[in-house]
């Protein structure tokens, strides 16, 4: 047959290496890339040729990927919301009856010079009463009072840096030590609970993400296993004519990659549609509480990460399936 070949001296002399069962490194590299392209295309076409089952798999993967991501986005939004509320968290320091305003002013100065405090404002009993009657519209009732029942209050805004629950508690204890102070009220309990809930939520997201990531691996692994079974003959022939393990593995890895990419895209689509659908009502609800809040969706980075995760999981699932099942097919 080499006689047959030599009848066609079409290629340049430099290429003669390729005519003697030897392949130059450069051309081999080119062919390698070409084979990757071909395999990638062929794997995708195979998936598209059976659209029913492929779409089902993509949807399952999309849902599995979208679930933890939904929780993650919700948590990010709650965090953002709590940050808004945090800024308004104040400590009310109630003074004992009979503390004169001069002493109260001095105390206010002392408190505002504390490290953990960014600002402190003294509200005298008269001022408080005025504000109360203006805010409630109960001026008649207020005027009917014989004496001012309200104590003097120092409104303390804590330093932003020291706003974790424990630091706030420390500050509270410190303020209680002043002799003029009757009581210190800080709405910390709910802040504490919120932090606890968010920590719990974060762990839930991770647990769910791990479980569903595992589910994605298994789904893809199983799909690839079936694909390996259905292409058993091909694998045998490829191994018989000298295909390396990498060569045999390649189409299946690409199949997994396409499954993962499709799943990631569907998950992204589900999330985007869901967030769009929710954003109106959520913003209305929040505005009822007098807060400015915009539901934040998936940023470009998070979107890419989501799709990338899908691709990685798809590839990994395929790799696991292939390394388990391919060794069993031997000519």
């Amino acid at each position: 047959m080499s006689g047959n070949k030599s009848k066609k001296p079409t290629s340049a002399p430099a290429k003669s290496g390729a005519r003697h069962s030897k392949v130059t490194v450069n051309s081999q590299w080119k062919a390698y890339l070409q084979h990757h392209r071909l395999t990638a295309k062929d794997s995708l076409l195979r998936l598209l040729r059976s659209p029913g089952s492929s779409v089902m798999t993509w949807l399952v993967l999309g849902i599995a990927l979208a679930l933890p991501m939904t929780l993650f986005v919700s948590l990010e939004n709650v965090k953002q919301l709590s940050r808004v509320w945090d800024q308004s968290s104040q400590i009310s320091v109630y003074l004992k009856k009979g503390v004169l305003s001069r002493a109260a002013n001095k105390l206010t100065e002392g408190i505002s010079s504390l490290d953990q405090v960014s600002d402190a404002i003294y509200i005298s009993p008269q001022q408080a009463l005025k504000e109360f009657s203006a805010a409630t519209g109960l001026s008649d009732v207020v005027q009917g009072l014989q004496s001012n029942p309200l104590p003097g209050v120092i409104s303390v805004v804590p330093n932003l840096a020291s706003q974790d629950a424990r630091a706030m508690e420390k500050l509270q204890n410190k303020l209680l030590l002043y002799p003029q102070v009757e009581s210190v009220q800080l709405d910390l309990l709910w802040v504490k609970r919120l932090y606890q809930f968010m920590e719990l939520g974060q762990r839930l997201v991770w647990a769910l993400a791990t479980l569903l990531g595992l589910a994605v691996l298994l789904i893809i692994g199983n799909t690839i296993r079936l694909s390996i079974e259905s292409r058993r003959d091909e694998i045998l022939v490829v191994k018989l004519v000298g295909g390396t393990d990498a060569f045999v593995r390649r189409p299946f890895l690409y199949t997994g990659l396409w499954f993962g990419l499709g799943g990631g895209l569907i998950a992204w689509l589900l999330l985007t549609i869901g967030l769009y659908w929710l954003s109106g009502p959520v913003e209305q609800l929040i505005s009822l509480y007098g807060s400015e809040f915009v539901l934040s969706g998936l940023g470009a980075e998070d979107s890419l990460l989501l799709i990338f995760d899908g691709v990685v999981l798809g590839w990994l699932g395929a790799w696991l399936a292939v390394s388990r099942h391919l060794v069993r097919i031997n000519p």
Partner: protein
Amino acid sequence: MAHVRFDNVSKSYPGGHHALSGVNFEINQGEIAFLTGHSGAGKSTLLKLIMLMEKATQGQVLVDGVNLSRLANSQIPYHRRRVGVVFQNHQLLFDRSVFENVALPLRISGYSSRDLERRVRAALDKVGLLKKEKQSPIELSGGEQQRIGIARAVVNKPSLILADEPTGNLDPALSAEIMRLFEQFNDVGVSVLIASHDLPLIDRLNHRVIGLNGGRLEGERPAGALS
């Protein structure tokens, strides 16, 4: 140096079945030989040992001076690329064209598309199927399918061709045609080993015959012995 050499090779399977026992022979570079014997005599096993589809339980199989039992698993694909194999049941892939079937070994070996097309067409031309390259193998007759298998075996220009009952299902005229193809490859220096029980055809061709019976060598006949 002998192209293929069997040194006291035995192959037994779990359960005690001895497929080959103490087989010694050599095939020289550029030689053509038939491997004969009843079914179950060990012909296929012998070919499988050369292809490393099986490993000898005893003795050594050497190809081009390389002891196959010393070959690492990762080297097996590269060994197989140097040997062209024709199977009785063709082992063609029906989900792709004739062209792609023949191109498979070249894709595996990493040929660029230009070299690949040239070589595939040359191989198809050799077996007379150039005009059917776009068809699916399933549309072709048994003889044509076998010729695709041969084209695939030779497209990588191996120096050794093995054939396992290549004429098993073919009528005498087609069988003779297939054998003529092997002879043509042999004419340009390729070593050929054909397992066959088509004794009339083998006698007519008068090449070297290696006989197997119950896993042992029996009835060796040198080339030209019948003239």
